């Protein structure tokens, strides 16, 4: 743990000097993780240099911010996938009514949806963005909810059916320095557009695609999300730090342990609290059990989407075994609320080790069953191989982490990139494939179940003695500053960004959704595929909708 943070520090020094040389107007602030503040006017050139010259090709997170009097702006977390360097850049426009930030959607494709989100939440107009519609809220929504000056009474429940915005607005700069609003039609008049979702068995929740078809072939997909946007980030701003923990489990409910782990780790980092090895070990095991649970559900749902119902039941049968173990210790099946700041809710159950070992013995041969019934099935192979290819460049550019990124050959596992908890002490393999098609995405998950079993096996007999809850003050106040911590969730990098002003409430909490990048690449990878392929692609991308919408 200590060694890696030292490496991080060195990297930072190195890149710090470079940025200072590149852009003299950039101001370094040391609070928290430390970040550069760049004026809006020089942000775009700096971003271009960082992307094209310094190789910062992965936009980890884009966070919209309301800095009060300093105006509205964004925080960009960038990573160089080749060297592992990280840098945080922020920019702000002081004009609150008409905040404008240049768009970076052409540098990092993942910025497309993230900027739409920031526009939706803060009303920041991204100049040059091709499709600046709201992402989560209704088109007729008044105001921007995550602003500090947002009036809750503005938007009562509106039961009128929502119309479809068929034009995408964009702000473009004119040569004389002004801005004009342009509108582009999304679909042509004669296109056959069908609605998949929000209530549809294969969208895994309430996601909505407007799909333009030519026969059975998909021409274009317009993603609508926000049907389960619960405003968790805004809610967190009015909760104390221990209270915020309650909401993370409900983001990606198949990665409940990992989500909460990320938030706890972030708060602990900000507090400067180092947890005991026992806690780290328990958290690691729990994370891996959760991962197995999630991947089993992935296999089950994928097979259900493809029409092979038998495997759905096999997946659920085995998943119940994991839930039994989790339930015994945490008391919950799906929402475990187990991690706390500085520890875990309760020590592991006396039977935990026995049951876990039993499960490992049970699960290993079962993997063979999935292989025989599903993986080796000729129809499965025919349908998954070669469909929905996501190239490595696109995966990085979109920020499609997790199994989907690794299937495209991008070694993006946070457990290896920025080891946390016990992951630097256990021996496991990072599964990567090269083709990036649906079949590889499926295989990554299957192989990862085996790796997770390996990790648990290495740790289960060696849980060190120690406290399971560190001493923490009842009222937690974080120093002023901002922190970002990521863990490898079940379906990608789950990050937590906290900005604190020294209060017992966070000033801003942002969860880096694992699913949003996955959904943003769906239009790219399913063009010219069939409707049935879209279902397979959606199944293998393995997104959880509440995690996208937050």
């Amino acid at each position, binding site marked *: 743990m200590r060694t890696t943070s030292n490496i991080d520090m060195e990297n930072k020094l190195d890149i710090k000097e470079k940025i200072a040389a590149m852009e003299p107007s950039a101001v370094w602030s040391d609070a928290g993780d430390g970040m550069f503040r760049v004026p809006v006017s020089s942000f775009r050139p700096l971003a271009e240099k960082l992307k094209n010259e310094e190789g910062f090709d992965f936009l980890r997170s884009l966070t919209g911010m309301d800095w009060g009097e300093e105006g509205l702006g964004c925080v960009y977390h960038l990573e160089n996938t080749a060297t592992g360097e990280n840098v945080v850049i922020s920019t702000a426009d002081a004009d609150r009514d008409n905040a404008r930030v240049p768009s970076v959607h052409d540098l990092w494709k993942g910025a497309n949806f993230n900027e739409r989100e920031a526009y939706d939440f803060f009303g920041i107009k991204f100049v040059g963005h091709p499709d600046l519609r709201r992402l989560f809220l209704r088109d007729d929504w008044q105001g921007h909810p995550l602003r500090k000056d947002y009036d*809750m009474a503005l938007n009562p429940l509106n039961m009128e*059916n929502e119309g479809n915005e068929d034009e995408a607005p964009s702000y473009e700069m004119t040569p004389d320095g002004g801005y004009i609003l342009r509108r582009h039609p999304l679909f042509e008049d004669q296109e056959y557009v069908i609605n998949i979702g929000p209530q549809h068995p294969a969208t895994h929740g309430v996601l909505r695609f407007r799909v333009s078809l030519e026969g059975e072939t998909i021409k274009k997909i317009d993603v609508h999300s926000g049907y389960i946007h619960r405003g968790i980030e805004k809610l967190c701003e009015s909760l104390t730090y221990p209270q915020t923990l309650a909401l993370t489990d409900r983001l990606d409910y198949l990665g409940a342990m990992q989500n909460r782990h990320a938030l706890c780790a972030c708060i602990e980092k900000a507090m400067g609290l180092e947890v005991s090895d026992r806690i780290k070990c328990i958290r690691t095991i729990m994370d891996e059990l959760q991962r197995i649970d999630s991947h089993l559900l992935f296999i089950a749902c994928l097979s259900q989407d493809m029409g092979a119902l038998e495997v759905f039941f096999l997946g*659920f*049968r085995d998943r119940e075994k994991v839930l039994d173990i989790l339930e015994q210790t945490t008391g919950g099946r*799906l929402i475990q609320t187990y991690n706390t700041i500085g520890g875990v809710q309760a020590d592991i159950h006396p039977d935990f080790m026995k049951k876990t070992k039993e499960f490992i013995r049970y699960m290993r041969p079962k993997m063979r069953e999935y292989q025989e019934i599903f993986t080796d099935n000729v129809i499965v192979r025919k349908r998954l191989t070669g469909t929905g290819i996501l190239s490595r460049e696109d995966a990085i550019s979109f920020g499609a982490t997790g199994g989907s990124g690794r299937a495209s050959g991008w070694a993006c596992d946070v457990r290896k990139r920025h080891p946390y908890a016990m992951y630097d002490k256990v021996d496991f393999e990072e599964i990567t494939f090269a083709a990036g098609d649906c079949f590889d995405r499926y295989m990554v998950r299957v192989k990862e179940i085996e790796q997770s079993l390996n990790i648990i096996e290495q740790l289960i007999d060696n849980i060190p003695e120690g406290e399971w809850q560190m001493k923490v003050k009842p009222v937690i106040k974080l120093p002023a500053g901002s922190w970002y911590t990521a863990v490898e969730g079940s379906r990608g990098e789950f990050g937590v960004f906290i900005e604190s002003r020294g209060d017992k409430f966070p000033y801003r909490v942002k969860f880096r959704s694992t699913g949003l990048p996955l959904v943003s690449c769906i239009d790219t990878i399913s063009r010219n595929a069939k409707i049935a392929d879209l279902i397979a692609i959606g199944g293998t991308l393995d997104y959880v909708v509440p995690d996208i919408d937050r």
Partner: protein
Amino acid sequence: MKRNVSIKSMKYEDFNDNEYIEQMLKELRDNGTNVIVGCLDDVIEWGRSNSLWPLTFATSCCGIEFMAIGAARYDFARFGFEVARSSPRQADFIMVAGTITNKMAPVLKRLYDQMADPKYVIATGGCAISGGPFKKSYHVVNGVDKIIPVDVYIPGCPPRPEAMLYGLMQLQRKVKAQRFLGGINKGISEKEYEKMMRKDTSRTEDYRDYDESGLA
């Protein structure tokens, strides 16, 4: 004739915590019916209560538990519930599993309207009952009963599968306590319905002109 309402292998005492179903039962016992109508009603309600098909609808966490009761360990096929239909036209009840947000609310209402009578609603989990942990959010409906009539509430976050099965059995009990003949099937005339619906969908109606040939 007095109709009896019981659920197989469940003691009555395990069930009587549900006040309004008790009320329905009392009304049912107090006002006897004609023997023929009563018998026919009994058979119809027996059939309906044992063949409630859910709509595959889930918005968040509770949806996974909803899948779990369909899966091997909890298996709601035992009750005859397993034919989950994806088309609201063919479903008998909608299990609102998960948070309903402001953007989803009109969609949920529409789904409910699209279902064929007799139809039932189960509010599953804290979010659907009252907004749950997200009660104070700017984008969450505080309880689906503000939008559509709810028959059974299943508390929990998410409810355990056992709780869901219990809730489903309560729904069965409610169905059995209803009168199909002269009761719940006494709908409104097609004209009135049309008028009601038109009011509701007039906005989308203006939005696009329909081509009467069948293709919009």
